[in-house]
């Protein structure tokens, strides 16, 4: 039986959240998904602060991170994760509308594990999410300290 890693989605747009979750559900990857709606909430989750005080301390198997976020933006979240000893091995995938080279270069400089531009076409979008989910939450062996559950 495959184990399923927890996916942390950081996305402010509710429609994108719904479409992403729909895509994940279609492939039975949605059981272990946490959605945070801005950069600050994402960091709260990762550091078990605020409303996430009571959760267990394991890191998610992968973070799907949008770049354009209210309060703390995606690049700042990425920088924080990659400069923290406890978080830096956690895979982070930037999932964004931005095709800007500047964003891509900055993300890679900060140590992002993958950079995916959200396809406009829905089939392509569903495929992209499915492949990301399957690869990072199922196939990839996450670093120690990540949460995995049998599915």
């Amino acid at each position, binding site marked *: 039986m495959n184990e399923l890693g927890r996916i942390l989605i950081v996305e402010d747009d509710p429609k994108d959240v719904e479409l992403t979750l729909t895509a994940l559900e279609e492939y039975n990857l949605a059981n272990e998904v946490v959605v945070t709606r801005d950069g600050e909430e994402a960091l709260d989750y990762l550091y078990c602060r605020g409303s996430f005080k009571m959760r267990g301390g394991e890191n998610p198997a992968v973070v799907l991170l949008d770049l354009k976020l209210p309060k703390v933006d995606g690049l700042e979240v990425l920088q924080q994760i990659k400069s923290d000893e406890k978080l830096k091995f956690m895979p982070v995938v930037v999932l964004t509308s931005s095709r800007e080279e500047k964003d891509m270069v900055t993300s890679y400089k900060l140590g992002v594990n993958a950079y995916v531009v959200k396809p406009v076409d829905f*089939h392509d979008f569903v495929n992209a999410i499915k492949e990301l989910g399957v690869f990072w939450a199922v196939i990839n062996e996450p670093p120690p300290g990540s949460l995995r559950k049998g599915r």
Partner: protein
Amino acid sequence: MSKPEISSERVISPVLRYGLAVLSVGATLALALLAQSYSAHNPEFPMLLIAIAITIWYAGTGPGVLSVILASTAFNYFFTEPRYTLYIGPSDRLDFVLFVVFALLIGWFAARRQELQTIRDRLQIEVAERTQQASLLNLTHDTIFVRDMNDIIIYWNRGAQELYGWTPEAAIGKRAHELLHTVFPLSAGEIRAELLRSGRWDGELQTTKTDGTEVIVSSRWSLRRDEQQRAVAILETNNDITERKKNEERIQKLNQDLERRSAELEATNKELEAFSYSISHDLRAPLRHMAGYAELLQKHASSVLDEKGRRYMETILESAKRMGELIDDLLTFSRIGRAETQKTVVSLDQLVREVLTEVQQDTNGRKINWRIGALANVYGDRSMLRVALVNLLSNAVKFTRKRSQAEIEMGCSNGKQDEVIFFIKDNGVGFDIRYVNKLFRVFQRLHRAEDFDGTGIGLATVQRIIQRHGGRIWAEGEVERGATFYFSVPKS
């Protein structure tokens, strides 16, 4: 004015000079003895004095002294009683003393006169030299004037007259910097200190001509000191640099304009960048949602939709997809314009192989005869050239779609100087040569959308890429008889 005589002392050798003393006294003595034998009364007295005078006049002091000694001895020996002895009898002692005193007096006068003559000669030489120097200073085009330590002008050359307009007569005696309304870059004290310390000063001065126009001069001052090292005068040389200054100011102003303009351009560029960023991010998101939800709706409601409803659904989805393509192509187009080119040697052979693999994925088993010749290396931005080739080759594939046997050819030839010309020729639907100027414009299409899909941005992007490489692009074609695209790129 005659050439100044040079004193005899300087040219006649000592032998000749002392010889003259001996000769003149000897000859006079002979003449006096001869005159005496003709019973002339005391002829020796004036004659010997004349001999002494001649000697001193022509031979100078030393021979003069010799002649006095010789003449007094001869006078004593030949003409005072007792004769032919060097003893002087009491009756002639007065005569002898008188003779010696006269001889000495004549000698002294002659020597004094000689001395005055020498001084006069020297003065004449000096005057001549100075006059020559002054007229030389008048020859130079530079503005030169001399002023004393109270700033009073004491010399004013022709260059000064030409520059400022005052004649030497009008300028000499005036205070220099009152006359010229000089504006100094430093305080007078600082300039004076520098001048006294090093003997020189130079700087730029603003001065005024007699007609009131301002002149900017590059000024050099030199201090003249007398033998006691006291500062006595300042020589000032000025060069008119007004024109140069004006040019410098003009250049400076142009530079400022340029800087301002490039700052404006930069700001515009930033704005454009922000604009395309916002297109990239903010326009794509709602589009994705439209497509996503339409798709979900289609899945959810397909059972209740009739044929018409399903077609509407299809159209929404197709339109969303097309708009996505338009945005992507526009972004590529704008990025090509903004991005910096990173030029290296690019092997077109290899690049075209890569591009063909990509393009052939969309040929769906069509029969295409590719004829790719040997392609030269070029110097350019690889990723940009790749975009250009993808566009050109996929166009060739697209517009030969109706051919049962498509022919696509690519090759190259040498162009002007350092460029290579490439061509891509197909046997597709071609185009009407009358519209060739519209071919490379954004959103311009020469075919209907239902015949050939496309955004109308591809060839505009290709043109922009080629232009960014300093090359040219052009096309030839005929309706239903294929098209050939040419572009030139710098050689490697």
